Structure formats: structure tokens, C-alpha cells
């Protein structure tokens, strides 16, 4: 018997939450850009928080895939006389060459029993004797196939300085299968590692850090902002002056200086620092909002009814501010994102976690940014960050427009 109200609550609470969520999404769907932003954020959540469990982080350097373009795959090179050998199955019993420190050895591993494997050593960065030697052997039919990355084949053949060798390769070597192995959806980085897997793994920490920064800033601003608006007097003056003082400091530059002092062991720690830096503007906004709400009729009514201050704050003022607070939270998340990635791009933040920001940093410092084939290493995280920010802004605008037209016109 005693359990029945409890049971009721257990059943009704999730239902209420679901209903609330449904209403929220339903109302949001009237605002098309905002809905797109909302779906985008869901997608980001899925990719960065759920997909890492299914996609492995590619941490194995492979020399032949240096900054491969989008969609790069391993290729099979054979002699011109045998174009029918277009898969490893067709090559059963034959000799296949692979070059060490490339994608080849790990790819050929499952066929170890059916094929004879000839290993070549990769020596110099691009045109070491390894690949030319392997191609020469292939052209002379000493091996029957060669596993190699498309870009390297082209480089070795087309840019071959030795005219005789170049002629030999062009006359004898063809690519029988250019779609071996998994495609690198976003290409590979300077070490031949799959960028797509880095993209999946590189967002979570960034988003969490931004979230921590945003939540801390919003909490500080919400607490002290409403306190100073409601208490007035000295407290109000003190916090307003403090906020103004902080606002006068160039915050990003202060963060840059701080980054030199504090050794951020973890990126998340950076979020806390950012949160402690960006609250002042928020505090002013929330203080103004509380001040304006305080003068509204329904608050006046509650006050004249003699309801307690607690009631007025928690039942009248705060619920009416929820969407405003949400909007401010979202905007402070975008600022936190701006700050932390700016720091990483400058090379002043920890690069131990391989985040999107670190990808941009390496993309710049290793020069792939300036190479059209390898641009994906910097372009993918750049686009990911840009779209994430846009989704946030679209969502915040929609919340502003759909849920709070009154607040907006009053602001």
C-alpha cells in the first residue's frame, strides 16, 4: 500500500520527462534552422560519445600513406602481363611483396598461409630503395604482386628521377585493384594514420571541456548575478565592480599567460580555468534579467501576497529564467570552445589528448595544411569545429525565439 505513491511517481516521472522532451522537440521543430542545429548536436553526441566504442583509434604509423587524400586505399600492383590477378585470392600460391612500415604488412597478415610474402625495407622518406627495388622486382617478374598505397606508386613512378627505371615501371607495372583494404574516408595524416578514426575520438574531450567551462561560468554567473540583483546595495556594487574589472582584462590573453604558468595535466582542467575566466559578461546579463523579472507583475503579485523570498526566487523568478539561462549556457560553451581551441592552435595547451585542436596544430606545424592532398588533416577538424559551433548557435537562437519571445522583446 505504502508503495503505491512511490510507484506512481516511478511511472509518472519518466513519462513526464518524455512528454516534456516531446513537447520541446515539437515546439522546436517549428523553427527549421534551430531544429537542424538540434539534430546536428545529437549527431555530434552520437559520433563523439558513442562511436568511439566501436571505432578503434588508428595509432599505427604507416610510412607509405603520408597525408593521403580523401578515400585513399591500399592498391595491388601487378605485372602488365597478368591483369587477371586483381585480388589476393587470385594470387594464391604466388609471391606478393610488401614494404615494411607501411600499410601492407598488417593488411596481408590474414593471407599469410596462402601466399608467399616477400618483405622489402623502407629506407628513405619517399623514394628509398625499398619501393623502387620492389617495383623493379615486380617489373622483372621476380614477385607477382605488390601491395602499396596509391599515392606512393604514383610518386615513385612519375617522379622517378632515373629515366630508365621510370620507363621500366611505366611499361611493366599496372594497378590491377585500386580498392583493396578499407577506404580512409577522410584520408590519412602525416604518419599514414586514418583521420576518420581520429575525428571520432578527438571530439569528446573538447566538447566535455567546453561543457565544463560553460557550466562553471553559468553557475557562477547565475548564483552571484541573481544574488546581486536581489540583494542590491553593497553586494550588488561589489559584484558589478568585480565583473567590470574582469571584463577589462583581455580574457583570451590572460588565458594565454595563464597557460604558460599552469601546467594543464588534463584538458578538462583547462575547462575549469576557462569557466573561471568567462563568467563576468554572463553575470551582467543574468543580473539584468533578474532585475527586469523582479519588476514584473507576477513577481509583484507574489510579493504582495506575502510569499516568502525563497518562494519568489525558486518558484517565480528562476523557472522564468530557465530558457534564458540555457541560451547563456550555450553561448558560453561556444566561447569556451573558442578559447581552448585557440590555445591549442597556438601550441600552448596540452597536446597529450589527440583532439581536433591538436590535429589542427599538427596539420599546421607539419605543413599538411599547405598541401592540397593532405589538407584533410586540418580541414576535417576545422569543419567539425565550425559546424559544431554553428549547430550550437542555431539551437540557442531557436530556443530564444521559440520559447521566450517575451524575454527577447523585454531585453
Amino acid at each position, binding site marked *: 500500500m505504502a508503495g503505491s505513491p512511490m510507484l506512481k511517481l516511478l511511472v509518472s516521472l519518466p513519462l513526464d520527462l518524455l512528454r516534456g522532451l516531446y513537447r520541446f522537440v515539437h515546439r522546436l521543430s517549428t523553427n527549421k*534552422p534551430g531544429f537542424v542545429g538540434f539534430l546536428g548536436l545529437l549527431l555530434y553526441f552520437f559520433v563523439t560519445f558513442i562511436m568511439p566504442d566501436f571505432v578503434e583509434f588508428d595509432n599505427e604509423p604507416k610510412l607509405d600513406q603520408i597525408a593521403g587524400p580523401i578515400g585513399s586505399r591500399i592498391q595491388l600492383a601487378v605485372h602488365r602481363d597478368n591483369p587477371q590477378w586483381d585480388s589476393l585470392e587470385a594470387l594464391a600460391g604466388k609471391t606478393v611483396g610488401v614494404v615494411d612500415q607501411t600499410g601492407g604488412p598488417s593488411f596481408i597478415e590474414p593471407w599469410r598461409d596462402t601466399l608467399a610474402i616477400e618483405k622489402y625495407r623502407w629506407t628513405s622518406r619517399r623514394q628509398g630503395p625499398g619501393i623502387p627495388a620492389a617495383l623493379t622486382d615486380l617489373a622483372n617478374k621476380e614477385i607477382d604482386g605488390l601491395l602499396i598505397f596509391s599515392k606512393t606508386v604514383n610518386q615513385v613512378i612519375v617522379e622517378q628521377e632515373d629515366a630508365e627505371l621510370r620507363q621500366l615501371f611505366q611499361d611493366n607495372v599496372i594497378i590491377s585493384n585500386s580498392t583493396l583494404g578499407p577506404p580512409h574516408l577522410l584520408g590519412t595524416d602525416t604518419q599514414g594514420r586514418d583521420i576518420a578514426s581520429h575525428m571520432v575520438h578527438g571530439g569528446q574531450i573538447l566538447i566535455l571541456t567546453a561543457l565544463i567551462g560553460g557550466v562553471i561560468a553559468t553557475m557562477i554567473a547565475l548564483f552571484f548575478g541573481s544574488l546581486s540583483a536581489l540583494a542590491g546595495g553593497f553586494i550588488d556594487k561589489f559584484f558589478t*565592480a568585480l565583473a*567590470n*574589472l574582469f571584463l*577589462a*582584462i*583581455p*580574457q*583570451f*590573453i*590572460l588565458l*594565454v*599567460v*595563464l597557460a*604558460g*604558468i599552469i*601546467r594543464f595535466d588534463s584538458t578538462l582542467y583547462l575547462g575549469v580555468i576557462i569557466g573561471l575566466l568567462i563568467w563576468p559578461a554572463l553575470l551582467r546579463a543574468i543580473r539584468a534579467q533578474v532585475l527586469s523579472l523582479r519588476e514584473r507583475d507576477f513577481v509583484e503579485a507574489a510579493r504582495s501576497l506575502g510569499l516568502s523570498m525563497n518562494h519568489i526566487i525558486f518558484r517565480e523568478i528562476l523557472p522564468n529564467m530557465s530558457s534564458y539561462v540555457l541560451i547563456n549556457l550555450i553561448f558560453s560553451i*561556444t566561447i569556451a*570552445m*573558442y578559447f581552448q*581551441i*585557440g590555445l591549442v*592552435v*597556438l601550441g*600552448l595547451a596540452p597536446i597529450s589528448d589527440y583532439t581536433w585542436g591538436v590535429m*589542427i596544430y599538427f596539420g*599546421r606545424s607539419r605543413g599538411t*595544411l*599547405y*598541401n*592540397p592532398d593532405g*589538407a584533410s588533416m*586540418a*580541414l576535417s577538424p*576545422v*569543419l567539425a*569545429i*565550425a559546424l559544431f*559551433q*554553428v549547430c*550550437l*548557435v*542555431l539551437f540557442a*537562437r531557436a530556443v530564444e525565439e521559440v520559447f521566450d519571445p517575451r524575454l527577447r522583446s523585454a531585453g
Partner: protein
Amino acid sequence: MLHDQQPLATDQQPPAPNLSLMTARLYDPLLKVYRNYTARVFLQAIITIWVVMTLTFVLVRLMPGNPVDVLVEQILTAEGISYQEAYDRIAASFNIDKDATPLDQYLQWLGDLLRLDLGTSITSPGTKVIDEIARFLPWTVFAVGTGLLISFVLGIFAGMPMAYYRGSKLDHILSFFSSFSTGVPNYIWGLLIIIGPGISWRWFDIGALRGTYDVGLTPGVNAEFILSALEHAALPVFTYIIAILGTWMLSMKSSTTGVLNEDYVNVAEARGLKERTVISSYVGRNAALPLFTQLTISIGFVLSSGVVVEEIFVYWGIGHLLFQSITVRDYTTLQGVVLLLTAVIVFSNLFADLTYGLLDPRVRVSGEK
């Protein structure tokens, strides 16, 4: 906002009665200064700058590693001499007194500042910090100023139709653009410009656009130099424009929306004034007023957020100097740059506070009630 305009009452209540006459006499002029709005705002500005200065002084000295160590590391590996030898050599070439306590340094620095002397760089002795700043700052001011002004004008002209045709296709498209503009960080815009038009489509040669002007040209008033400087500034300026434009568009839109509901606009329309007159003289001017305050306030923000953009385009402005001085732990230069940027922010806010009443007489009236 400006509750200063109240006339100073001569019979102000005296300070607390338990104070002696002497303290009261000391206290009185201070009180008078406090009651005068302009003086108070100035005082606040000075205090803010002092607090930030002190904070920077402390923070900079808390940084791990010091300029001597940074250089000692370098020559240790290069020349293979003992640590003490290297240390002495570097310390001797530096412009520092090793025995001075931080407090001495602080007082010395404050004293020098009063004479507008920012000191000399620690890592390159003989170079005055103020000269370094004077060498780098103009480029930043030029790039940021141009970007800010162009985006401001564009934003005003794009924001008005957004308010006029609210809910139309035009409004939606421009709003959508403004979400991109405000959401995407400015350095991300910069990277996109480098990757897209710069590298993939080869519209221009990024490598040649590094620095602030072509190497080998002598700065001066000649066509070649000016053209080269403009060329080098084009990409940062364009980045600033895109990244700030959205904010102006939205501000102008909401400001115009507010003005459109005002009675005087209705009256002007009812009087049968030409639509163009109403738009430009009644709506536009009134709506743009509050934006001027925002413009002055945003100067500081854009100046400081340009650090990453300058680093990305390798544009040698104040951000570059700041970044350099952090990497080599050049305390004095770092302090000088942060102080300067803070001063710019504080004084632009001050300027906004003081001039807003002049620009918009209504503020004065409403402040007096």
C-alpha cells in the same frame, strides 16, 4: 546609466559624525571626486589598469622557466660548455639585476611606468619595449581597425532589411549567415580561407603573403610599399570582417526592430514622408546609435582575439609579439603588451561611457529621473 548629471548639492550630508574634523576635511574632496561622474569613471579606469598591471606582474613571475634558462638550454646544447658558464654568460648579457627581489622589481617597474617608460626587453637587451610595441602595434591597429569598420558598415546595411522584412526569405538567409559568422571562431575562418582559396584553388599564394609587407621594401609613402602592405593585410582583414559581421547584423536587426515600434516612426509615416527619408533619417540613425557604443567596446575584444588570427596568417602584429614574448619568457615585453591591450580596452570603454550621452540625448534625460 549616467546618474552623474545631478547637480552637486552644496549641502551634502557631512561624513559620518564620529570622524574627527581632520579626517572629514581629508575625506571631503575624495567624496566630491567620487560624486563627479567623469572623475569617478576615470578613477575606476586607472584602478582597473593598476590591478591588471599588478596581476600581470605576479602572473608573469609565476611562469615556470625564465628567460635565462630558455637561452641557457639553447647554448648548452649548441656550444657544449658547463651550465654555470652558460648561465653567467647569459645573465651578464641580459639587462637584469639578479639580486633584485620581486618587490624591488615591482616598485621599479611602477616608477618607470609613471614616466611612461615600459623598460627594455630582457631577451634582446637594448631594445626598448615601447619601440617593439610601436613596431608591431600599427599593423594590428590597421588590420583590426579596417576589419571592424568595414564589418560595422556592412552590418548596419544588412541588419536593417532584416528587421524590415522580418520572417521573409531574406531575413532567414541573412540570419543563417549570421549564425555562421558569430559561431565559427575567427581563426577557424582564417584556416578555412587558407585551405580553400589559398591552397586548394590557388587563388593566391599564401606563402608570399606572410609578414606585413614584402621583404626588401623600405617602409615609406610610396605606391609599392602601400600596395604590398594592403596585400598582406587583406586576408586578416577579410577574416575579421566575416567573423564580426554577424554580430553587427544581429545587433542592428534587434535595434531596428525596437525603433520600428516607436511612435515617432509611425508619426513620420503618417505625415506622408517619403519612405527613404523615414528609413534613413528616422529609423536608421536612431537604430545605429547604440551600436556606436558597442563598436568602441568591441575594439579591445577584437584586438585581443586577433592573436590567433595573426599567428595563423603569420601577420606580424601585436599578437605575434605577445606570442614570441611568451615563448622566450621576455617578462618586460609581455607585461608591456598586456598593459597596453588592457589600457586600450579600459579607455575604449571609458570613451563609450563618456560619449554615449553626447550621441544620444535621450539617455541623459532618462538618467535624470
